[in-house]
Each structure stands twice: as structure tokens, then as C-alpha cells.
């Protein structure tokens, strides 16, 4: 196998796949969040996982992935439910409820860490929970004859499988509950009148979101998860008013941002003569922002140019 192709398959293909699968999961869930005006929930969950990590470490005394993941996911789910409780019984709007819960959870995490652990132990969520795209490489067989075999498939990094599972779960969820999600997102009252449990659908969405977000943290890191939840969905929102098209567009935008961002970050600096690559997750987030900017200007109906032309403001 040619060494360039081998290097591409070993170092670049797994992070690209992991990023693309995470992007698909995040873009679909993000679309519903943007439509339900809960865009910041991903950020809220990313702060809320801290107490879960600390407690998981204290209970098991280890830094291994599975207890940390479970702790983080439980804390994330709890925070999603509590946000709902505060919104309902505190009579405040969603963003205020998120602000209250995620800052409380984060503070709780800091306090537990201070009291119990960090005096002596380096317990950094950035190291424990947040993965990094660049480090998802593998050592596949070095010739095509043995490349296509089951053992190769088994040596694919776990992060790629984790993000693929998250993507398929999310797609399955949306396909099965398409109608229910549609009604409960746009008209909860109608949904209730028709006899669907809109609160149940909402809670399922929240649990799925917490799991997908925490799984993506381990794979692609926290910056990228938050960027991918909000940016592609917001970009799609500027381009269409139809839910189906919205979901497809947001997935397309997320995938474009991932591929262009990865290539620019990994190889761009070398084309300009610099030796060091730059952070891939950061560059993908920048690309998502660029796409959003482009849509804000040139989207067919809601873009600045189109609005000027039709005389609307």
C-alpha cells in the first residue's frame, strides 16, 4: 500500500469518520433543539456533567472510561429533567431554567472536587471526559490483501463505533417517532389534545440528547459538540421552513463543516509553510460559523440579500 494512502487511512480516516457520525447525531438533535428554542441545552449539559464525573471517580476510585461515562450521563440526564422541573414550577422561561440548573450543577461539581479530591488529585474533566479528534488513529494492516477482513474491522478505534452507534440511534429515534416529534415540537397543545404524551416524547429526547452529547464528548471534545448542535441547525433554519428538508440540510451542513474543517486544520498550515497543524475541533467549529454567516447573507428567503431584494426588513 502506498505510504501516503496508508497514512491517510491510519491517521485521517478514523477522526474524519468519528467527526462525521457525531456531526450527523448532533445536527439532527440540534435541529429539534433550535426549533424548540432550547439551543443552549447542549452547553448546559456540558457544564452539568462535572459533579457526575467527580462522584464516579470518588465511588470507583478509578479514571477508567465506563464509570466516568455513566456518571457524566446520569448527571446530564438529571440536569435535563431538573431544567424542565424549574421551568414548569418556577414559572420562568427555558433559558432562565437552564442558567439556574447548569450553574448550580457546575458549582456543585467544583465544590465536591475541592472538598474531596483536587487537593491531591489532578481531576480534570478536560482529560477524563473530553476526547480529541486527532488522537483517534489506528494501525490497520499495511496491504490491501489483508485490509478487507473481519480483524481489520475489529481494530477500528472504539470512538468511531461509539459515534456511529449514536448517529444510528438518533436516526432511528427520529424515523420511528417522526410524527410525534413533529407535532410536539410545533404545537404541544395539539399534541396533547390528540392523545400523545408530549412530555414523554420530550423526556425521551432529553435522555437521548444527554447520552449522545456525553458520548460525543469522549469522541470529539466539548467545543465541537456544542458547535455541531447549534450551528448546522441554525444554518438550516435560515434556508427552509420544512422539517424534513431542515433535518437533511443540517446534516449536510454539518458534514461539509467537518470535512473542510478537518482538511484546513490538519493540512492548511503546511500549505502556507507552517510546520504545526492547528486544532481540528476548533477549525470545524469555525467552518460551521462560516457556513452560518454565509446562510445569513445569501439564504434564498431569510438571507440579508434576499430580504433587501424583496423589500422586507
Amino acid at each position, binding site marked *: 500500500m502506498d505510504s501516503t494512502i496508508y497514512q491517510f487511512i491510519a491517521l485521517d480516516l478514523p477522526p474524519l469518520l468519528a467527526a462525521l457520525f457525531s456531526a450527523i447525531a448532533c445536527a439532527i438533535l440540534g435541529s429539534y433543539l433550535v426549533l424548540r428554542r432550547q439551543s443552549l441545552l447542549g452547553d448546559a449539559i456540558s457544564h452539568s456533567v462535572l459533579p457526575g464525573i467527580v462522584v464516579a471517580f470518588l465511588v470507583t476510585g478509578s479514571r477508567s472510561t465506563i464509570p466516568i461515562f455513566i456518571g457524566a450521563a446520569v448527571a446530564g440526564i438529571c440536569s435535563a429533567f431538573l431544567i424542565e422541573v424549574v421551568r414548569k414550577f418556577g414559572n420562568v422561561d427555558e433559558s432562565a431554567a437552564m442558567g439556574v440548573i447548569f450553574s448550580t450543577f457546575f458549582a456543585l461539581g467544583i465544590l465536591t472536587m475541592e472538598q474531596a479530591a483536587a487537593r491531591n*488529585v*489532578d481531576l480534570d474533566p478536560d482529560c477524563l471526559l473530553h476526547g*480529541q479528534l*486527532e488522537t483517534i488513529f489506528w494501525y490497520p494492516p499495511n496491504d490491501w490483501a489483508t485490509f478487507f477482513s473481519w480483524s481489520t474491522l475489529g481494530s477500528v478505534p472504539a470512538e468511531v463505533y461509539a459515534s456511529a452507534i449514536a448517529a444510528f440511534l438518533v436516526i432511528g429515534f427520529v424515523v420511528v417517532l417522526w410524527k410525534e416529534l413533529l407535532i410536539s415540537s410545533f404545537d404541544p397543545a395539539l399534541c396533547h389534545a390528540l392523545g400523545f404524551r408530549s412530555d414523554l416524547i420530550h423526556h425521551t429526547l432529553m435522555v437521548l440528547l444527554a447520552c449522545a452529547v456525553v458520548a460525543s464528548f469522549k469522541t470529539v471534545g466539548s467545543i465541537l459538540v456544542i458547535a455541531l448542535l447549534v450551528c448546522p441547525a441554525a444554518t438550516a433554519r435560515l434556508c427552509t421552513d420544512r422539517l424534513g428538508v431542515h433535518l437533511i440540510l443540517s446534516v449536510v451542513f454539518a458534514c461539509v463543516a467537518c470535512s473542510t474543517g478537518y482538511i484546513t486544520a490538519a493540512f492548511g*498550515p*503546511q500549505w502556507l509553510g507552517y510546520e504545526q497543524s492547528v486544532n481540528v475541533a476548533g477549525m470545524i467549529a469555525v467552518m460551521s460559523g462560516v457556513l452560518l454567516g454565509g446562510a445569513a447573507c445569501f439564504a434564498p428567503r431569510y438571507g440579508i440579500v434576499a430580504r433587501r431584494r424583496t423589500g422586507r426588513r
Partner: protein
Amino acid sequence: MLTSLIAVIFSLITTVAAPLAASAETPLRVVTTTGMITDTVREIAGDRVSLTGLMGAGVDPHLFKATRSDIAHLSSADIVFYNGLLLEGKLIDALGRMKSAGKAVHPLGEQIERSALRELDGFPGQFDPHIWMDPQAWEKIVPVIAQALAATDPTGASSYHSTAIQYQEKLRELDRYALRVLSSVPPESRVLITAHDAFGYFGRRYGYTVRGIQGLSTESEAGVNDIERLVDEIVSRSIKAVFVESTVPSRSITALIEGAQARGHSVTIGGQLFSDAMGANGTYEGTYLGMIDHNVTTIARSLGGNAPADGMSGKLAGAH
């Protein structure tokens, strides 16, 4: 459309990947993480190997994130040396994966004898990674490096072992100098107050009480109580100086100084110490010997001991 796009991407990658591609003629490729390890390997291997250090001056190894080019360096290396003991927090998974793929990956801190390490209070089995702060402990990684180099490059074995012995002698000389000047500080003043807990090994070796304002993790903030306790200690033991670190912000140190001043005791900033990274490349402080020399000399002079302003061998630049 898609195929032409893939073709373009591939040709662009080829231009980048070509210099990294392997060839049989090149010398042993060694990749290291922290500057301290890079410098030590350079002392032992000299020009026999092509050496790449990933972390430059002022980089916090706890927070270091590898980029695509760092990973390419690591994956094309013949030998990788890193500190281990969870110092390179964000690289551990990647390095572990390389190790299980059969690459020569050496966590130096985990390959020296356990008795040289400092176990963390209350967390058995977890060790303080900041080994380089004690030259006597650091010396133990030298034969490990020489052994690993010799195993991969047997023709250079005798050269590696003889330079290793020479370098060990230099480290012992540094340790003797440190013992001498640090014990010239009056015993009641042997307290080292810094921003975070990087100096545990230093304190153990030279009999200093070490107080970090933050914990081991740079994530946690100093609490009001901690500052209060430290101010008490500064005033009651009339400590002359506290220290700032090159990789940690100095805000909480300033709070200490103001707190002591409010109680009528004047304490100064004794100087900047190198904790998790060395000085600039190409300077004396940018070598391991220079870094420790700087720290030891600065600490001894600020706390009331006797040490030459230009350090152990007259090479320190920024001495006062």
C-alpha cells in the same frame, strides 16, 4: 465531482506527507513530550538520533493537545519517551494505543523504581508526576533512556551508555550544588510557597515545606480559607518571599502578598520559577540543568541563603 474532489485532497495530502514518509537510511527517530525529557534525551543521544520534542517553552503539559502534525510525528517515530503518571493528560489514550500496537513507547516515570516516586496522600497507587523537580530522582530516568535507545539501535549502545554516565555525573553535581545552597537557608525559613503543587519532589529531597495555593490540578481555584491559612503561615514564620511559576497565572500569589501586607508583614515575589516547562530554547534556562539551577539559586537567594547570583556554573542570565 466527488472523485475529482478526492483526487485534489489526496494530492494536497501527498505534498504534506512526503517529508514524513519513512526511509531506511534516516537515523533513529525519537519523539519526546516535555522539554525536560527532550533535553535529557539530547544529552544522551546527541547527534545519533533525529529528535523531536512536542512541547516548547511555557507549554503546560497537563493541558497540551496534540495536533495532526504532532500525531504524525508520534506515529512515524521509532521510539517515544514521555513522562507518564498522568502528566500528559490529553495524550495518554493516544500513547497507550501506540504501545498496544507494539510501538516502543516509554512512560519514563512509570519505568523507574516505585520508591523514587512520591505517592499522593490518601490515593494509594497514584503518584505525583513532577519528578524532574528532584535531580536525584530524575537521574533514574537516564539509564532507562540509554537502555531503550540501545535496544533499538545496538550499534550505538556503548556511546549511549557512556554519555548517560557522564550526564548522570552532571546531575549529581547539580544535586550537590542544590543541597549546599538550599541548606544555607535558615531552617525556619525553608518554606516554598508557589502557585500550584509542582514542587513536591523538590520539598522531599531538600527538606522544604511546600505549599501550593492551588492543588495539583490547575482547574481548581484558591479558596479564601486557603489564602488566609497561608497568610498566617507567612506572618508567623516571617517568610521573606513567595514565588510565581512560568506556566500558571500569578493572581492568587498577589492576593497572598496583599494579605500579608495588611497584617504588617512584608513579603516579596522571590522570582519566577520554572515548574512544568523550561525556559526559552537556546538559552541556559532552556536546558534541564539550567532550569533547576535557576530554580534552586532563585529560591536560596530569596529566602535568605547564600548562592552565587550566576548560579552553579556562572551561566544564569537573569540573576539578581
